[in-house]
């Protein structure tokens, strides 16, 4: 525990400084690895130095071996010299020596410093008789050999016989007297080869071979390769036999470093990775720590924020126990709203201050909230102020428990809507007033849009006028069209759309069918309102004008009746003025003439005329009587009569006329056709029309009379078609059915038949029409009311 505690501050120091820690780790690992590299470097360096030393030793030994062989050779050569100072068997000995020592190029005997004997001679002729003691190059070395009495090597020098070479000279004494030199000549290239230097040519070092110039005291180098190596690592041995110095020199110091660079880089990389890893590893907790800090700050700020909202909000906010309903906390606004102090509020529940009429709805929603079926709710309800007044509020309840938690508390935001409610009530009141006003209007008030089917408003009078409730009308988009009289639908919709296009107010009168199937005449007074967006709205009132229409209809009927009566009266006045007066005036005139006449014959003649006039008058009176009796008969006897027997009877009556005029009768009337008619009228009507058809036949052809029967609306029609002379309807159409109106010179034409028939037909509520073309024929259509 104790250590842990001690460690914790350090670790937290590191933990809170990931970068620093990372760098430290990097440095640490890098240092360790560097040390390893350094050691490795040392080892490599040492082994290289060892290698160089070994190589140097090998080469030195080789040289010494060569020099020893040379020495032995010169000794051997010197032995050829006899006591007289003359060499014996020089050639043979020379050959032998050269054969056993193949690195020696030539052997010489130089008595008194002058080259006299050379083997082989070939190639070395130039050196014969050369006095070395007089040569500046060889003199020094020769003297040194004489002085030291040891073999001494000169060179490498430019040889007389050409090429670079070394010459080893052994001073020979004969009887303690200097005789000369026994010498070996070795070509420098061969000498180098014998040293074995070449076997090391691949190594990281090279050899150099030098000799101090006796005269200049300067060191001269003879092997290829840099001579300026004093700054580099090298080792050397001195070879006194020739005052030579052999060096072994490391070619490149950097070689080891180079070979160590990858390891060094690897070390660096590893250290870096470790550092970065440590940084990232340590950074995470520190980031988390930062985050926690930021969050904590935020939370603190939020808490402050919410606290200030809670306390200074324009809305009441409460924190309530969802189970018991008691207030846990409430802001000042809420307290102010309901008139309790903070302390008092915490002692009451929301149920206590909620209007009892609203409590059920509130509790139901709370229950749903607690069951998790609601994620929150809003509600308009009433609170009681402490003083007892009612406050309208809109509450918004939000649960403060998590989904998987048990319900605990909730937050309620309370908005005072008392003012708004007052306005609303006032508005509803005034709307109700207007509506009740509209509903008292004695007509169906409606409202609608031209582009929308159906109506948006229908006043309650709909039920009184059409038997349909306003709702029934409003529910059905096509109510208006469907309940309009089928005969009015097309023209009314056409007119309405035209008016709406022109945007003109209009008044239409049409029929609708009420709930019990009766026709109701309505006057639709439509106003057009242009809305702000230039669209239009219809407002109209449908007034029940059924009664007016009925009056109008009755009036029209009465007018028609009166007009007809008038016409008959006029006809009557004609009959009276023309037919009766013409006879009476004739009687008057005849009476005067009789009175004034003196001639008895004339008197008798005039009296006869008078009688004929009175007969005609009588006949006319009879006809008039008949017409009057038809017209005054209010309820003539009506029976169901078959047409066919009546037609047959008529044809029988007219058989003589038909035969004499050669008329052909085509009777297409079905046997089953029956009409409700007065029997006498029916006989008279059919007789008159058929007789007419026969009578007015065309003089140039035989009459053909066709009888047809069919139904047309509320009538049964009897059609009588002939091919007679025809009637100029343009001229005589009006006169056709008048009394005593004739327009032919036919003596049988009395102008009474059609007049009576027309009267009879009119009385039976039928009608008669005529189509005719002169010289082609005439068709009469007699309409019998069903």
């Amino acid at each position, binding site marked *: 525990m104790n250590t842990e505690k001690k460690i914790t501050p350090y670790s937290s120091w590191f933990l809170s400084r990931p970068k620093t820690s990372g760098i430290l780790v990097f440095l640490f690992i890098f240092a360790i690895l560097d040390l390893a590299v350094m050691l490795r470097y040392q080892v490599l360096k040492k082994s290289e130095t060892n290698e160089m030393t070994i190589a140097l030793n090998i080469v030195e030994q080789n040289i010494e071996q060569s020099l020893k062989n040379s020495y032995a050779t010169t000794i051997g050569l010197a032995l050829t010299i006899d006591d007289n100072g003359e060499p014996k068997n020089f050639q043979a000995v020379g050959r032998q020596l050269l054969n056993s020592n193949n690195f020696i190029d030539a052997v010489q005997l130089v008595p008194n410093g002058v080259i006299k004997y050379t083997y082989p001679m070939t190639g070395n002729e130039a050196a014969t008789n050369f006095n070395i003691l007089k040569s500046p190059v060889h003199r020094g070395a020769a003297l040194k050999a004489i002085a030291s009495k040891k073999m001494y090597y000169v060179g490498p020098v430019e040889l007389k016989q050409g090429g670079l070479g070394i010459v080893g000279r052994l001073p020979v004494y004969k009887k303690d007297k200097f005789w000369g030199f026994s010498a070996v000549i070795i070509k420098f290239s061969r000498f180098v080869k014998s040293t074995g230097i070449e076997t090391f040519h691949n190594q990281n070092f090279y050899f150099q071979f030098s000799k101090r110039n006796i005269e200049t005291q300067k060191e001269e180098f003879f092997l290829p390769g840099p001579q300026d190596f004093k700054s580099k690592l090298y080792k050397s041995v001195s070879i006194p036999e020739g005052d030579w110095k052999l060096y072994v020199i490391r070619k490149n110091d950097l070689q080891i470093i180079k070979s160590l660079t990858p390891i060094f880089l690897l070390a660096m990389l590893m250290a870096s990775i470790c550092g970065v890893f440590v940084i990232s590893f340590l950074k995470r907790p520190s980031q988390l720590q930062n985050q926690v800090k930021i969050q904590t700050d935020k939370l603190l700020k939020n808490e402050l924020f919410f606290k200030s909202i809670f306390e200074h909000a324009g809305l009441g906010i409460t924190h309530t126990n969802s189970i018991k309903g008691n207030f846990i906390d409430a802001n000042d606004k809420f307290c102010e709203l309901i008139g309790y102090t903070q302390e008092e509020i915490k002692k009451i529940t929301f149920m206590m201050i909620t209007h009892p009429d609203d409590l059920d709805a509130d509790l139901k929603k709370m229950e749903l909230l607690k069951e998790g079926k609601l994620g929150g709710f809003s509600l308009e309800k009433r609170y009681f102020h402490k003083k007892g007044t009612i406050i309208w509020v809109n509450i918004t309840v939000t649960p403060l428990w998590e989904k998987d938690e048990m319900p605990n508390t909730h937050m309620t935001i309370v908005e005072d809507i008392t003012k708004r409610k007052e306005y609303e009530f006032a508005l509803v009141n005034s709307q109700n007033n207007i509506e009740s006003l509209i509903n008292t209007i004695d007509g169906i008030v409606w409202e609608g849009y031209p582009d929308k089917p159906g109506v948006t408003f229908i006043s309650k009078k709909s039920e009184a006028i059409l038997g349909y409730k306003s709702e029934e009308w409003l529910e059905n988009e096509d109510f208006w069209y469907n309940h309009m009289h089928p005969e009015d639908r097309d023209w009314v919709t056409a007119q309405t759309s035209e008016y709406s296009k022109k945007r003109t107010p209009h008044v239409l009168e049409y029929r609708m069918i009420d709930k019990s199937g009766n026709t109701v005449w309505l006057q639709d007074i439509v106003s057009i309102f242009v809305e702000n967006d230039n669209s239009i709205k219809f407002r109209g009132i449908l007034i029940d004008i059924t009664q007016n229409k009925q009056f109008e209809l009755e009036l029209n009927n009465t007018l028609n009746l009166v007009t007809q009566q008038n016409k008959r009266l006029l006809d009557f006045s004609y009959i009276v003025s*023309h037919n009766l007066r013409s006879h009476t005036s004739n009687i008057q005139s005849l009476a005067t003439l009789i009175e004034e006449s003196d001639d008895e014959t004339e008197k008798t003649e005039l009296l006869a005329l008078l009688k*004929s006039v009175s007969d005609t008058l009588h006949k006319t009176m009879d006809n008039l009587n008949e017409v009057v009796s038809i017209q005054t008969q209010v309820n003539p006897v009506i029976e169901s009569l078959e047409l066919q027997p009546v037609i047959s009877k008529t044809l029988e009556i007219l058989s003589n006329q038909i035969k004499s005029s050669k008329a052909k009768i085509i009777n297409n009337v079905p046997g089953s056709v029956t009409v409700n008619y007065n029997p006498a009228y029916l006989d008279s009507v059919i007789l008159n029309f058929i007789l007419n058809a026969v009578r007015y036949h065309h003089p140039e052809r035989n009459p053909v009379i066709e009888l047809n029967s069919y139904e047309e609306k509320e009538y049964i029609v009897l059609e009588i078609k002939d091919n007679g002379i025809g009637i100029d309807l343009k001229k005589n159409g009006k006169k056709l059915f008048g009394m005593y109106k004739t327009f032919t010179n036919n003596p049988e034409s009395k102008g009474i038949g059609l007049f009576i028939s027309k009267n009879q037909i009119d009385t039976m509520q039928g009608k008669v029409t005529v189509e005719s073309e002169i010289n082609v024929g005439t068709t009469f259509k007699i309409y019998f009311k069903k």
Partner: protein
Amino acid sequence: MTLKTICIIDDDPIYQLITKKIIEKSHLFSQRQSFTDGFDALHFFREEKSIPDIILLDIEMPAMDGWDFLDEFCELKKSFDKKIYIYIISSSIAKEDIEKASTYGCICGFISKPINLEKLTKIANS
């Protein structure tokens, strides 16, 4: 004073007979013609190229009535350089007929039946 010629157009034979007797007895006219139909009268006037001075015209006639006759006659009259007096003689006392008659410029008067010497004398002196 030369006597005028007179013409009766009426479909009533008894009236024609009576009027003929009155005219004969009156001695007011030099010549008397009678037609029972407008067609016959027009046909005669056209063929003979002569028109009487005075025409007594009935309205109610079959085939061609008085009005139809007047429509054609007023045209025909223009070809005769002569003053012709036309009187409507009708049993009608209907106001409409009298009014209608007054719309024809070539009509001198509307006289209700019965015709008598007094009325005839007035006509002759017109």
